[in-house]
């Protein structure tokens, strides 16, 4: 029997979290849910304790990578062997969680990543995303279709490594490079795209420029790093 933790990273998602939690619960009642509040300044933390889920509260905003690291370390300590990340803004459908978990349970994947672009032409891919996907495919030697997807399921080995080393900043593209460098087996799984439920994305123009710079640096640097050791520290 596998123990699965659904980690929901959230920054100022007070308006969406109740709906996200309800959706996950109604679809997969066997999943334990952990919300990781990444230094929210809205009413997120007034709501979270009322949802009947587990939660971590980061005292400052550290970014989604740090929120995931905290969630994964919590998962390790509590003895979970599978983690699925569902974003707090509601853009990931709980309906697709099954599809992500299947390859991880079948043990032929350490990581299953949701892709919104699995059917060619079904969803128009913005040019920047296409370019990034090509760069990542070239650098990893694997076919990357959705380089900015943060909808993924992790098996035991991926949890152990990412609990210490999940990339930070704007981590999704760098995550692909990191997984490849550390010889973790990745499969892409088709998911249906959806817009965030309510509110604004925390991505602004200035953040996008910073994110682009970090991704470019990661493209050069990450494949040159040494693979990380799996640490026993929990």
């Amino acid at each position, binding site marked *: 029997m596998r123990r699965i933790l659904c980690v929901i990273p959230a920054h100022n998602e007070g308006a969406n979290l109740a709906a996200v939690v309800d959706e996950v619960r109604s679809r997969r009642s066997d999943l334990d849910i952990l919300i990781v509040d990444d230094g929210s300044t809205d009413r997120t933390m007034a709501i979270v304790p009322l949802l009947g889920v587990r939660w*971590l*509260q*980061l005292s400052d905003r550290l970014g989604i990578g*740090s929120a995931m690291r905290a969630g994964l370390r919590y998962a390790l300590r509590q003895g979970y062997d599978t983690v699925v990340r569902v974003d707090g803004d509601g853009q990931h459908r709980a309906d697709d969680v099954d599809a992500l978990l299947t390859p991880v349970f079948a043990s032929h994947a350490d990581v299953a990543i949701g892709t919104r672009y699995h059917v060619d032409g079904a969803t128009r891919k913005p040019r920047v995303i296409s370019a990034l996907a090509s760069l990542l495919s070239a650098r990893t030697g694997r076919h990357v279709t959705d380089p900015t997807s943060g909808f993924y399921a992790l098996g035991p080995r991926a949890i152990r490594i990412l609990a210490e080393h999940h990339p930070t900043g704007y981590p999704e593209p760098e995550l692909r490079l990191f997984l490849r460098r550390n010889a973790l087996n990745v499969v892409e799984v088709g998911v249906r795209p959806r817009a965030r439920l309510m509110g604004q994305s925390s991505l602004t123009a200035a953040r996008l420029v910073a994110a682009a710079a970090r991704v470019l640096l990661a493209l050069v640097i990450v494949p040159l790093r040494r693979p990380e050791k799996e640490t026993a520290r929990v």
Partner: protein
Amino acid sequence: MSDHIQMELLAASVLLLVVVLDLVRRRKLTEEYSFLWIFSALALLVVSMRQDMLLTAARWLGVADPPAVLLVVLVATVFTASLSLSVIVSRQRQQIERLIEETAILSAELRDVRAAHATK
């Protein structure tokens, strides 16, 4: 290089050394980060007392004006210092992130323990 400049340089390096050591004495600067500055001060001290080293370096580098070598050395020192400060800041950032993550996990575990205790 004139004797005048030499005296100023000597005074400056002694002053730097005294200030750094005093900061360490008052625990305002920890030992591990003080060595960079102590080495810089000592290097400056040596150069100010041994003009011939500066002349040799200038000839070796093909610089016509020996005091210009001094300037190059100073710039290099400042560069090294600020680069190592960036490394230190980066390490501290990682440590702070880790601490915030850990305190969040610990308080969640504490919550669990308290809840278990309350229901007993």
